[in-house]
């Protein structure tokens, strides 16, 4: 299931430690004006430096399966947030909230929050930085 909402207004500055931990410019890869929520089944988790990745398959109402990948924060931050190695595994049903890549042709996003099937929410990505 994929839900998108779009809005284009001024920027809200949400600078904080998490904003700074992306080693690159968030804005150069992802569009902070395109929040996205994807529900699906995890196919792979890569807790690796400098940024982690979640891969999942989302099935829409017609049965069509889409493959998605989400870049998340550093594995160190994820571990400290409770997403320890092996906690999220292939086959797990999850919901990932984040922002779509600027390249709209790809099913790629920046993960911000991961919600497990039992409703537990984990912060897995940075707050977006304002354009500079």
């Amino acid at each position: 299931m994929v839900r998108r909402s779009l809005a284009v207004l001024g920027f809200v500055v949400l600078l904080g430690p998490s904003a700074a931990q992306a080693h690159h410019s968030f804005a150069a890869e992802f569009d902070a004006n395109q929040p996205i929520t994807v529900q699906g089944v995890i196919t792979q988790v890569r807790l690796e430096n400098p940024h982690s990745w979640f891969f999942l398959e989302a099935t829409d109402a017609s049965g069509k399966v889409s493959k998605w990948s989400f870049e998340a924060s550093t594995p160190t931050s994820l571990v400290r947030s409770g997403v320890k190695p092996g906690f999220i595994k292939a086959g797990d049903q999850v919901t990932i909230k984040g922002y779509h890549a600027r390249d709209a042709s790809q099913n790629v996003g920046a993960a911000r929050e991961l919600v497990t099937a039992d409703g537990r929410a984990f912060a897995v990505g940075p707050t977006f930085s304002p354009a500079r």
Partner: protein
Amino acid sequence: MKRALLTAVMTVVAAAAVASLASAQVPRMPDGHPDLSGVWWPGRDLQIQPLTASGAQPARPPASGPPAAPRIRPPSFASLYQPWAMEKAKTLGDKDDPSLRCVPVAFGSLNVSLYGLGFVGQIVQTPGFVVMLTETYHSFRLIPTDGRKHREDVLPSFRGDSVGRWEGDTLVVDATNFTDTNWMAAEGVVSFHSDALHIVERYRRVDKNTLEVEATVEDPKVLTGPWKVPTQTLRLAPFDQIMEVGCTGTESAALMEAAAKQNYGKK
């Protein structure tokens, strides 16, 4: 009048008592200097926040009363660029950030050199050295505190050459001998510097859980004057070991390339 005077005296005495108590809580080395050891960060890690478009403005109460005073921002490193450097900065953007190629920053994205590109670092203090370990990009600074001068036989480096000295309870760290190939910060914040970069930091553990850092940055080849960095307050983290954040990231590079094709970040 007497009551006001008494209140003022009591306030001063109470403040002094609080300061004395805080000072007493500061761990100390056998030589009496404060022990700055510990994992330091801004006080939190990632946190869950509502997912909204960046343009979504929070609801504000209707304006009433006199207009608020304008917010005065402290100058940043790049805001002090000399005219030629300001012009050069206009030609640079996200894709030129050396940290994308795994190059450490000279200072820090949060204006804290201990954090480097990230937001957490660890200090390990010995009688002769203060060792600063940075989690993101896994870098370090070795700061001798035995009164020696800067080394003259080392090559310029990304994080410079540091020496330290104690001024009372404040550790003063002097860093020079930087390369001119990295930036002060990361995340696409244009902040190139020259090999004349000179950073002086003052570390003071104000109580058991708080470390304050002041810094002054000079770079006479690119800046019009010294940059007085706003005082940063670091908190003792609830864990005593940092981890490793190395640098790879081919996916990121590909995404940035794709975004650049849509003219984002291309100058």
